């Protein structure tokens, strides 16, 4: 036990089998070293990713705490937010009937609406975008209309949707759809128009039929653009759902925030905002991840 390098080797054996085994010794002794080094390296890499964002976060929390510490501050400091909303944070699954539910249920309801509206937008957007990208005439006839419509703010559609559907739920889904569909349409069209002439020529020499062309060349070639549109779309729908739910009511994170405001539960609002931010972040990342998996290898060669 005196020489550290020999620790891991069965001591009696080394002593008995003197010289020949002495050659093996350094290799055996060296094994723990890379393992330890790897552990340190991984730890360092993780710390390198985790520590930098933690520093400004801590700084912000401290500043916030100091600014709102006074008794007449308009907003609660972080310590009071945690104290006020402890039940909300620790038990997101409670359900006391009606609208008195845990945050999970509100977020779940909002996510359902977003996913439904967004899926419709993804399907419709890619289809219309393909049409515009493929056909010069579709482009000329539809593009001006879309350029005007896409500038209409999402919430401006809500009253019209309410009038048409006579119910809050489909109206909210329509607002999500109409918000998310434009970037998907426009990016898909650009992606399809930008398919290199070479790939089209390959398709022509091979005499691919339209279906084969779509599956083998068009969709893979335009996929990076399509996913850019899908990613912008999911971000916009998550932005729109909170505002729409504030107006239509019912279960949903938007209504939860509005309800908390009406009940002067400022701490609840802050917790809900943090959740909204985190979910939005994960939505964006998951679409991006799907994009990376699908378009693997599609980037320029």
């Amino acid at each position, binding site marked *: 036990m005196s020489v550290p390098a020999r620790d891991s080797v069965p001591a009696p054996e080394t002593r008995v089998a003197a010289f020949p085994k002495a050659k093996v010794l350094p290799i055996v002794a060296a094994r723990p070293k890379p393992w330890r080094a790897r552990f340190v390296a991984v730890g360092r890499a993780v710390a390198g990713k985790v520590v930098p964002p933690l520093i400004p976060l801590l700084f912000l929390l401290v500043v916030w705490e100091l600014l709102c510490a006074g008794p007449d501050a308009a907003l609660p400091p972080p310590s009071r937010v945690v104290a006020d909303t402890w039940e909300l944070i620790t038990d997101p699954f409670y359900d006391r009937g009606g609208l008195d539910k845990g945050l999970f249920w509100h977020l779940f309801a909002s996510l359902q609406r977003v996913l439904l509206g967004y899926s419709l937008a993804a399907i419709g957007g890619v289809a219309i975008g393909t049409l515009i990208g493929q056909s010069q005439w579709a482009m000329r006839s539809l593009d001006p209309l879309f350029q005007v419509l896409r500038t209409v703010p999402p919430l401006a559609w809500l009253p019209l949707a309410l009038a048409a559907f006579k119910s809050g739920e489909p109206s909210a889904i329509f607002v999500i759809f109409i918000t998310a569909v434009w970037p998907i349409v426009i990016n898909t069209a650009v992606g399809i128009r930008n398919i290199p002439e*070479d790939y089209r*020529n390959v398709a022509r*020499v*091979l*005499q691919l039929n339209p279906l084969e062309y779509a599956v083998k060349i068009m969709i893979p*070639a335009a996929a990076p653009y399509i996913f850019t549109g899908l990613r912008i779309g999911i971000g916009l729908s998550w932005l729109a759902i909170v505002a729409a739910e504030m107006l239509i009511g019912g279960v949903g994170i938007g209504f939860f925030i509005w309800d908390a405001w009406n009940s002067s539960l400022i701490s609840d609002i802050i917790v809900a905002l943090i959740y909204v931010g985190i979910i939005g972040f994960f939505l964006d990342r998951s679409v991006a991840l799907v994009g990376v998996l699908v*378009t693997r290898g*599609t980037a320029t060669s």
Partner: protein
Amino acid sequence: MASAYLSIEQVGKSYSRGGATTQVLTDIDLKVDRGEFISIIGHSGCGKSTLLNIVAGLTPVSTGAVLLDNCEVNAPGPDRAVVFQNHSLLPWLTVYDNVRLAVDKVFRGRKTSAERHDWTMHNLDLVQMGHARAKRPSEISGGMKQRVGIARALAMEPKVLLLDEPFGALDALTRAHLQDSVMQIHAGLGNTVMMITHDVDEAVLLSDRIVMMTNGPSARIGEILDVPLERPRRRLDLVADPIYLRCRAAVLKFLYERHRFVEAA
């Protein structure tokens, strides 16, 4: 005359934009025999790529016609396989799948799936790329990509192989390697080949005949040079070969004396 395998007859090409018409090619007449290796050389902008695209069917003719094996060419097809200048492999498919796509399309109904696999591998092996079949185009070098492009074209069993400056983007050593490969394949399979190039040595080394184009606009065939060198040709033996030197000098004279590139390059 009528028996020529590939026959380009009185072909002209002009582009119209607005009121202005640009004549690119005029009165191109060329007969190519089966198994012949033809190079087309000329300064950039002389319309040689346009000519190749016309034979490929990718560009329609304005006047005249192209006949291949007594059939008129008016659309692209796998009987005139093109090796594009920048390889044009589909980056989302592996090397194998790029070739297999062509094989599946051309031999569907004529070969079983196993036969198509064997044929794909056979063509990859022909260009010595069988080992990289699972790689994507982004993972292999420029020369290897071009090899796969050649394999894809060969796999279609084309009547004419069209090479559009196939080695232009490669470094000199890789280019020499690929030229040797193309010569070997041509000797083995006896394909009819039409190659666009701007490299004089390449043209003399590979071709049976060299078609020299005058400068555009309104380019035409200036001269056709026979290269009576014995095959198989070996790069090193040719360095001091009088026929080789004479042919090379003839092409150089044509390009740099009689038809100098006048515009600033």
